[in-house]
Structure formats: C-alpha cells, structure tokens
C-alpha cells in the first residue's frame, strides 16, 4: 500500500494543485512532494536490504492476459524511488521565485511526471511498467511544448518521436516475452523464470535495449538529447536529466539483466565500447559548447555513458557504481541545470562567453555552484567520486584498456567544467556595461544548499547507500551468472 | 444438347452467365465516365454475385445462400439511396456527373 501511495499522492496532488491559483499551486505541489519524501523516508527506514522485494502489492487486473497490478520495491528500485522523491521537492522549489505562466498546470504536470516515473520504478509487471513508461512521456511533452525555449516545437517533436519509436521496439519485445511465456503473463518473476534460447534472447535484448538506449541515451542514440535539454524549461530539463534518463538505466537492471542474461554477455563488449565512445565523445564536445545548458547536456551524456558501461561489466563494482551514480548524477544534474537557470534568470542568457565577475558580487552562489561542480568533476569526498570510482573499477575488471579510455573523462570533465566556471564566474566583468547580479534569494539558497549538502554527505559517507543495494546487486549477479 | 433434357438449365450455365455479367459490370465501371452508368455497372456486379448465390443455394439445397442474397439486396438498395442522393447533390453543384470532373478530392 505504501508503494502505491507513492504513486497516488503526486497524482492527487496534481489534481489538487490545478484547483489552486498562482503561487498557491507551487506551495501545494511542494507540500505534496514533501509528503512523498517523508513517506519514502519511512519506507527506507523499514526497508530490509536482504529481504528481496518488499512493500509488495499484487492484484489481478486483466486476467485474460495475465496482467496484474503488481508493484513492490527491492534493493535496486529503492535508490531510484529515493532519487525521484528527492528530485521532486527540489525541482518544485527551484521555480518558487520564477514567474511562470499557468503555474498551476506547470506544477501539476511536474507532479504527474513524478508519479509516472515512480510508477516505472516500482512496477513488477511488464504491462503495467510499459504503461507507466509511456505515461511519463505525456507530461514532459506538454512541459516542453508549453514552456520551452524558442525552438521548442521541432525539438519536442524529435524527442517525442525518437522515444516513441524506441518504445515501439520495447512493446514488441514485451509481446515476444509474453508469447514465450506461453501466455503466463508479464509478471517480472514469470519473465525471469523463462528459459529462453540464445537467439530469442538476443532478439529480445535488441528490442528492449534500443528503447532503453534511446532513453539514457547511449551513443549514437543521443541526438535528441542536447536539443531537448536546451529547449525544455529548466524544471523540464531537471526532470529529463535528473530522473527520466534513470528510467533507462533502471530498466536495464530490471528487464534486461535478469531476463536475457546470455544475450547480455554476448552484447556486453559492444555496448561497453559504445558507451565509452559516448563518454569521450560527449566530454570532448562539451569543451567548446557555448550555451551552458547544452554544455551540461553533453556532460550528462558523457556521465551516463560511464554508468551504461558499468551496467554491462557483470561485476559488483560496476553494478553498484551504476546504481549509486544514478542517484548522484540525478542530484548533480539538477544542481547544475539550476545554476544555469539562475544565471539566465539574472542575465537573460546562458552563454559562456561574455560573462565573468559574477563571483565578485554573488559569493554565495559562486560557492554553492563550485561545490556542485566539483561533485560532477568527481573529486574524492564529493558524491560523484564514489560512483565514478566504482564504475571505473568495474570497467577495469572487464578491461583495463577500456577503463583507461573511459577514465579520460576524469581529465576532460575537469577541462570543460573548470573552463566554463572560469569564464562565467571568475575574473572581472568582461562586458562593456556594468551589470547586476543579485545573490541568491531564500528559495534558491535552500535548494542549492540541500544539493550541496547531499554532494558532500554522500561523498563522505556513502556506505549506507551502498549497503542498501548490495544484497540485491549480489543476488542479481548470481541470477545472471547462474 | 442432352443437358436440356427435363427442361433443366445446366448448373454450369448459371456460372458462366454470372461471370459474363460480372465482367460486363467491371468493364462498365472501368470504361464509362458517367457516374450513373458506373453505378448501374456496380449494381450489375452485385446482381451477378446474387445469381451465383441463388444458383448454389438451389444446387446444394441449403438456404443460407438465399439469405445472403437478401442481405446483398438490402445493402444494394441502401447504397442506391445514398449513392444517388450524392450524385444528385453533385449534379446540382457542378452540372455534371462525369467522373473526370470529379477529382478535387486528392492529396
């Protein structure tokens, strides 16, 4: 019941928020998101890492197809649920002092999106999962189209069609799984128990993975991403990069690794190589990007490449790294895009060039920004390091050469992050006219301080989080290698 | 000529007749440009099929063929009603029922 209420509360909240007007809707949305966060806290406190699937609810839905409403949380989904629920309040809080037209609809869509994404993370029935997966596309479509940048129509269309095309493959994949189950249904446990032959596994792997690869995205399925991240409204970008792309990562954990393990070992080299190419490619391009949001988009792409590579290393370091890095990347991406938004809010654009001198007049912002930035650069004792270290260690276990190439991200990330920070924040005003940059207001400060605190806390003491997922990961590895 | 013994028309002949009627109908639809003539040709095709249905029904002694003929006739009647009404309406608009003139509905 607790699990279902995590989905239901944002939905109800979205409906409630529609009734409120203007800024009230923001407060309603924030309260709803906070309630959900508290519930998540309760859930984690009661969670037993070694206990498999918990907080389960399973009732028949469409008996003739064997479809059930089956939700539950285990060590793999718990971090994702946590991420979605940390992200929710932060994203809502991040627009508190912004003028947003039709704010009640905006916030309702955010909550709707949150509900759908949590639904994806907790579904244990393939059919239900697919519905939530597609459902999540609807609010982000309207967010982008309704509140996006000047080039939003073309970009939204591309994003929508691209992901929809991927989903189609996934649908076929699930139908194939259903057929192979002999009509026993879509339940996760049923699908995991299937004994598929090699060829079928590879076909299903291909079908499912294309959908996930587009969502993450993995090189070369990424070209929707920079545009979408750039044109979406800030909160939309946060939802996309912070949480939505984790749907792809999580889905590999849930629907690929345990179900088609032989195909995974068959394809792993290819995918790790593709991911590593993506890391280098994304980082390299990020160096010379002019728009901060596009720059962070390519950075995000590079970081996700590392996670994707870790997913297929078939060892505990890689998988654990992928899980914790998903959480961490979500938090950091929200922080980075928020910083870009703050700059745009003050100065009217997000270009790297022609700025400078902000640190002089907005020290609080500068400090919080650089903490988030170093989290992204994966400095030890910040949250980014733990995941990146584990991921690289996992890849090294697979191949030290690939790890070395993937490790170039360590250098390149420092290059593009420090470079953009230097030109935007440091130095003196390079404009011809003087400019004003009011330092953070309360809601901005709270948002960024929470993010900065998470950056440092998770970096210093990641063990509780790793312990939450460890038994589930080890069990998954046993399943794969059985 | 012993097929005529007993005053019975041989079964095959019904089939040949329907085939000829159907072919005439197809040819009419394909070749004529007047919409009303085309309409009539369509009716001819329908009736050729009706003929086959009735013949088979009589030949096999089962009634379902007859029942289908009634269905077809009902549908044909409805079709005539709607179709002729459309044609009248078109004629009122463009003073013609030549299908060469009726090709605005494209792309």
């Amino acid at each position: 019941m607790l699990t279902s209420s995590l989905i239901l509360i944002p939905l109800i909240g979205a409906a409630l928020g529609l009734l409120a007007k203007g800024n009230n809707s923001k407060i309603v949305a924030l309260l709803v998101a906070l309630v959900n966060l508290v519930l998540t806290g309760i859930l984690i406190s009661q969670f037993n890492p070694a206990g498999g699937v918990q907080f389960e609810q399973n009732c028949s839905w469409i008996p003739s197809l064997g479809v059930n409403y089956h939700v539950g949380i285990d060590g793999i989904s718990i971090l994702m649920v946590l991420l979605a629920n940390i992200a929710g309040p932060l994203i809502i809080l991040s627009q508190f002092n912004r003028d947003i037209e039709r704010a009640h609809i905006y916030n309702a869509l955010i909550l709707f999106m949150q509900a759908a994404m949590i639904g994806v993370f907790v579904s244990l029935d393939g059919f239900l999962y697919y519905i939530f997966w597609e459902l999540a596309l609807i609010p982000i479509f309207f967010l982008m189209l309704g509140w996006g940048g000047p080039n939003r129509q073309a970009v939204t269309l591309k994003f929508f069609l691209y992901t929809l095309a991927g989903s189609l493959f996934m649908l076929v994949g699930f139908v194939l799984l259903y057929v192979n189950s002999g009509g026993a249904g879509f339940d996760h446990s049923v699908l995991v128990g299937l004994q598929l032959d090699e060829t079928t596994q590879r076909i299903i792997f291909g079908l499912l993975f294309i959908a996930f690869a587009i969502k993450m995205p993995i090189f070369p399925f990424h070209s929707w991403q920079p545009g979408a991240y750039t044109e979406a409204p800030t909160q939309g970008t946060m939802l996309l990069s912070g949480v939505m792309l984790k749907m792809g990562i999580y889905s590999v954990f849930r629907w690929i690794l345990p179900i088609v393990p032989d195909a995974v070992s068959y394809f792993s080299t290819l995918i790790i190589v593709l991911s590593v190419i993506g890391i280098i490619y994304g980082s390299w391009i990020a160096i010379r990007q002019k728009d901060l949001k596009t720059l962070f988009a390519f950075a995000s792409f590079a970081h996700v490449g590392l996670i994707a590579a870790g997913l297929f290393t078939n060892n505990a370091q890689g998988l654990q790294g992928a899980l914790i890095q998903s959480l961490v990347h979500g938090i950091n991406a929200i922080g980075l895009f928020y910083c870009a938004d703050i700059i745009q809010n003050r100065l009217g654009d997000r270009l790297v060039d022609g700025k400078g001198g902000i640190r002089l007049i907005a020290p609080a912002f500068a400090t919080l920004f650089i903490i988030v930035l170093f989290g992204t650069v994966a400095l030890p004792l910040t949250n980014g390091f733990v995941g990146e270290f584990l991921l690289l260690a996992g890849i090294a276990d697979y191949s030290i050469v690939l790890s070395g190439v993937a490790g170039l991200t360590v250098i390149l990330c420092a290059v593009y992050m420090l470079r953009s920070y230097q030109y935007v924040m440091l130095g003196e005003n390079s404009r011809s006219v003087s400019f004003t940059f009011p330092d953070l207001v309360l809601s901005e400060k709270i948002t960024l301080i929470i993010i900065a605190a998470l950056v440092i806390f998770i970096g210093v003491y990641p063990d509780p989080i790793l312990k939450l997922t460890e038994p589930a990961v080890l069990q998954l590895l046993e399943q794969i290698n059985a | 000529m012993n097929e005529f013994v007993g005053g019975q028309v041989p079964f095959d002949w019904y089939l040949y007749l329907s085939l000829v009627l159907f072919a005439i109908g197809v040819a009419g639809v394909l070749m004529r440009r007047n919409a009303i003539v085309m309409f009539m040709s369509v009716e001819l095709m329908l009736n050729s099929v009706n003929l086959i249905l009735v013949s088979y029904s009589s030949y096999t002694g089962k009634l379902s063929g007859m029942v289908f003929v009634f269905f077809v006739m009902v549908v044909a009647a409805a079709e005539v009603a709607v179709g002729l009404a459309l044609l009248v309406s078109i004629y009122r608009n463009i003073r013609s029922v030549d299908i060469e003139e009726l090709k605005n509905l494209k792309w």
Partner: protein
Amino acid sequence: MKDIVDQSAQFALSTILIPLLPLLGFTINAFFGKHLSKTLSGALATLSVAVSFILSLTIFFAAQNDGFSAFSVEVFEWITAGALRIPMEFYIDQLTVMFMLIITGVGSLIHLYSMGYMHDDEGHNRFFAYLNLFVFFMLLLVMGANYLITFIGWEGVGLCSYLLIGFWYKNQEYNNAAKKAFIMNRIGDLGFLLGMFLIFQNFGSLTFTEVFSKAGNYDLNDGMIVAITLLLFVGATGKSAQLPLFTWLPDAMAGPTPVSALIHAATMVTAGIYLVVRSNILFSLAPDTQHVILIVGLATAIFGAIIGLRQNDIKKVLAYSTVSQLGYMFIALGLGAYSAAFFHVMTHAFFKALLFLGAGSVIHAMSGEQDIRRMGGLWKYIKVTGITFIIGTIAISGIPPLAGFFSKDEILANAFAHSPLIWGLAVGGSMLTAFYMFRLFFLTFCGEFRGTEEQKHHLHESPATITIPLIVLAVLSIIGGFAGVPEVLGGSHWLNRFLAPVFADNEILSHSAHHLDHNLEIMLMCISVAAAVIMITIAYVVYVSKSVRPADDQHQPGGFAKLIANKFYVDELYNAIIVKPVMFLSNALYNFVEVYIIDGFVNLLGKGAVGGSRVLRLAQSGNIGFYFFAITISILVIILINTLS
C-alpha cells in the same frame, strides 16, 4: 601483538584528531569566517595545525621506542562493493610520522607567516580556510591506510592547490594557471587510478599492508608489477611536477607566496615521492620502472636547473629550482635509495619553504615587485630576511654542514655506486643549482637598488609573524641535515635507522644495498662541494664584481640563451600539439560529426518519412477511374497469386 593493540588504542584519538583539527579549522573559517576578526580566524587556523603538530610529536616520540610498531586506526566503512572493501582507515608508521611532522610543522610555521603576509588581503579568512583544508587533505594523503584514502588526499590537495593558485580570482591569468595545475594533475591522477585498479585486481585489496605482504609472490620485473608501478609513477609525475607534466608548477606561482611555500615546495609536490616510497616493495620488484624513474628524474633535475638559470621572477627561479630538486628525489627513488629520497624531501621542505617565505618577505618589502632586475641591495634594508635567505641558499647549494649537503650527498653517493655517469650529470645539475641560486641572491640582495623611488621609500623589514617562521626554518635548514650524518663522517645516520622498519619487508632492497669505499666517498663529497664553490664564485664574479644585469625583455640575447629564457618553449609546444588540437577537434566533432552525421542520420529518417509521403500521395490522384482500375488489378493479382501457390 599485544603491543600493537595497545598502540592503536593509545593513539587512536590523536590519530583521528590530527587530520580532524585542520578540518575543523576549515569548517569554522568557511562557515563563520565572515563573523570572525582577521586575527582570530588566522589564529584559529594556525592553532589547529599547531595542535596537530604537537599530537604528531607525541606519536613521533613514542615511535622512538623499540617497542613501537606500525598500527592502523579504522574510523568507518567508506566504500563497499562486492570484494572491494575500503574503510576510512589510517595507517601510522615511521614514514607517515615523519611526513606528518613536516606537514604540520612547516604547515603551522607557514600559517603563522600567512597571518602577517595576508593581513591586508580582503580574502584573508577564505585563505585560511583553504590553507587548513589543504593541511587536512595532505594529512589524509600520508596517513591513509590504503591507496584510495591516499587518493582522496591526493586529489584533495589538488583541489586546494586549484583554489589557492586561483586565490585572486579576478585575474584570469591566475585562473588559467589554477586550471592548468588541476588538469595536469588530473592526467597523473588517471594513472594513479588505473594503477589502483590493477592493484586491486591482482592483490584483491587496496590496503597497503595486504598488498605489500602479497607482493613477494611476484617475480622480479613481472609484467603486471611493472605496469602497476609505471601507472603509479605517472600519477607521481603529475603531482611532483616531473617531465613531461611539470609546466603547471612554475605557473602555480600565481598563488600567494605562502601557498607556493607550503604546497608547491614543501609538501604537496612531494606527494609523488611519498607514493613511491610507500610502495617501495612494488617498485623494487620492477627495476624497469626504476630505470624510467631514474631517467625522468635526472632529465627533470637538469632541465629545471637549466631553465632556472635565466628566470627573472624571484618566485619562478624558486619554482624551477623546486622542479629540479624534485628531480633529485626521483633520481634517488630510481636508484632504490628510498630513505635518501625522503631525507631530501625533509631538508628540501626546510630550505625551500624558507626560500619561498623569504621571497615573500622580499616581495612584501618591495610592495609587490617580483622581478629581480628591479631589486638589488636589499641586504641593508631587510637584514633578517637577507640572513635567513642566504642560509637557505647555502643549504640548497649543498655546502656543508647545512641540511642540503647531507641529503644531496647521499643521493650523489648512491648515484655513483650505480654509475659514475649519472653521478656526473647529477653533480652538473647541482652546480647549476648553486649558480642560479646565488645569482638570485646576489641580484636581490647585493649591489645597488634598482627599483623605483617609491619602492625604495617603502622598503621595510617584515613584522614578527613573518620573521619568526623565517628564523625557525633557517635554524632547521642548518641543523636538519644532522638527522642523517653518514657513517663516513662519523655519524650514525639516525634517519636511516628510524625509517628502517618501513623498508624491513623489502627483501630486494636489503640484498642490493651497496657500500662505497670510505675514501672514495669522501673524495666524491669534496668534488661536489668544490664544484658548488666554484659555481658560487663564478656567480659572485659575474653578478657582484662585474655587476652584470639580466637583459630587459626588449633586449633579449638570441640563440641558446633565448631558448632557456623561453623555457625551451615547452608550454608553446604543449599548446600547439595538445591544447589546440583538442579544442579544434571539439568544434569539429560538434559541427561535423554530431550535427551532420549522427543528428543528420536521425533527421534523414524524418526527412525520408516526409519525402516518402510526398511521393506516395501522388497516387491519390482523385481520378475515380484510376482507383477502380487499381482495385481491379490488385484483386486480379491476388487471385492469380492464390491460384498459383
């Protein structure tokens, strides 16, 4: 066994407190710095490091007892993933204790110095916060019980270095230097990381004690060990500014002078040496790597010294001198003379910190001027600085009985035992050292004052907070060498005996120790000292008797001298072959590959769909006759196919 338990229990608290106190100082200064007065914030920062120093001293004295043995203190579980278990754990042995003493000792002196030096800076409190943070990370680096904790410190000091080089962030040149330092360090860090991964794969652990106890299973020059040590050495070249990753260090002089003294001379740059000495068992197993280290060290020592000859910025001279001296330490490491390397780390920390602080005092007196061409004759204005500076200069030149002599001599003796050629080159480098250091001294302190009248008017000795650290460091530079007086000079080499347990498990080392003949050793000493004296004399003749002045920027001589003055164009070279192509490729990848190929392909699909529909819709001609015809033909075709099959 009982002893070990007792020790770790006895010192657990101090062990945790030692790094924690500077962290606490950082926290207070970072969060409440705005509300503290300058003196209070500086005093807090200094005190936190000083208390750590005292706590380190207690461990140091305990380590003098025979019963002392290395111990570990676990604080909490940090990372666990499958077989990888990394606790936040400290490991204290003799090597660590010595490094802790240097870091907190020299560190607290430099903190004290900074209280005077940075007093008028608006970012005063921020400065102390960073400085404390640096000490914390540096302590973590040397105290970590496994490679990953060391790596935290390793990257952490890089962060502080970045923050402190770019401390005056209004100047984009300084920011560039900071960024360059961070990125070049990261190149090395990647090597360190990969080395760690290989260690974990082969040894199943990253904990020092476990790794080293299993190292005996490997043969000499085993490919894996060579790979591991080479990767670790790549990390060391980045942090310790060796060829080819040295160019960040001279640029790092953009930071405030105390930073140059603490981070870029005494402590952080010696982290690479720490790493190699710590992993001495692995490195001794890989003579191939040692050869590489020897060559790189030697090349850096000479290269740095040559460039130092023609630098005119007082801090740049010292920076290249640091590069060169670090090269000497790596020569020692390449020779397997680990304790000699550490000895030089220690004495270098004393005299180089002294020289940098002295330079800071000079700059302070000169109202911010750093160009030695506009100094001169400062001796009579700033006596304390001058006296301490000459002590440091003599020490680095290797004149007995000052500290530099003993440590450098030990390296030279080892070099001779290995090959006279290396000895010769090393002596040549040290001759250059003596020359450029005395050139610096003579140009700064002797002759006529060449600055502006205004500068002359402001010339003054620095306050006590600045001179006291100078004096203390000068004393240490004089007596520091006596920690390692070799047997041939009647000493007992206390340092070698103290550090012996660190190398006790290194069997290769104990077999390969070489002893030079006593007479030969004394002769070598005489040669190197004589060489240094000759060079000092030459410097005296050139810069004092003949009063030669370095040329202005407009009148630079050509040829080799120009090459040196321009630092062999290494920066320009890196810019041309690395930075520019990287930037160019970044643009090219985006503008060509991304836009035209990858996105182009996706757009092509979309355009294909649109184009296809444009073609297909032509079939929708509106001609009813055609439709009928198409229907008929289609039906006929279907019937035909059905009949045929």
